[in-house]
């Protein structure tokens, strides 16, 4: 009963918070080593993170996309923290390998 009363947005955090963090760390490592530079690095990350996280939630966690508010809700959830994780990893790895 309590669960059924919750809005779709309430269902997202538990499902999707850790995964984008791990993904950001991974992408940051790869882009830092490669090195991927410039605006391309940021745009590529945004595209990869939204598409892969979306795919993960829908295909592997078997969650109905519409039930949690659609593509944008899923992409927006935890984006700030994940983006910051990506930036820190990207900058640190790039600094250690190419600076």
């Amino acid at each position: 009963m309590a669960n059924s009363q919750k809005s779709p947005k309430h269902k997202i955090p538990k499902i999707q918070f850790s995964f984008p963090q791990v993904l950001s760390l991974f992408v940051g490592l790869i882009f830092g080593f490669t090195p991927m530079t410039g605006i391309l690095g940021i745009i590529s990350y945004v595209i990869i993170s939204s598409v892969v996280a979306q795919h993960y939630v829908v295909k592997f966690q078997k969650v109905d996309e519409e039930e949690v508010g659609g593509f944008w809700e899923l992409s927006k959830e935890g984006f700030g923290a994940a983006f910051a994780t990506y930036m820190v990893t990207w900058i640190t790895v790039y600094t250690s390998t190419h600076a």
Partner: protein
Amino acid sequence: MLADCLLIIAIAFGTALAGEGITWLLVYRSDQYKRLKADMDKKTKKLEKKKQEVGDTNDKNVKKKLEREEERLKATNRDMSMFKMKSMFAIGLAFTALLSTFNSIFEGRVVAKLPFYPIGFIQGLSHRNLTGDDMTDCSFIFLYILCTMTVRQNLQKRSSNSMVQENSG
């Protein structure tokens, strides 16, 4: 440069952890907060139950009663926010002082190399207190803000998840 980078990540991690710890000590662990939280939960449940019982009624007395309940709930919520805000304000002041100390330690030092060319307003942060024209040089404050963003949000998410689990368990 890498040593500075790692040191800043450690500082951000330490300060975020300390901030959350102090918040827990001053706010979440205090009896007043626990009492307010319990009161709030009780009132919310009561109101939801009443709303379900009543349904779509046109009875003015019932509606008035519900409105009164809602007002009480709002008042409790306000008290809780005020209590939290006072502690958060004190913590915020302490950490701003700490930040300015770190800022002066790293003043003029390039702590990292940015893999991108920052646009206008970001340059103000990423190149703060740095000499030279290379805008890909990164200052302490920019990296610190990014680290704090990631560490604090992760910590808050973990702590709120554990609190939810505690409450439901």
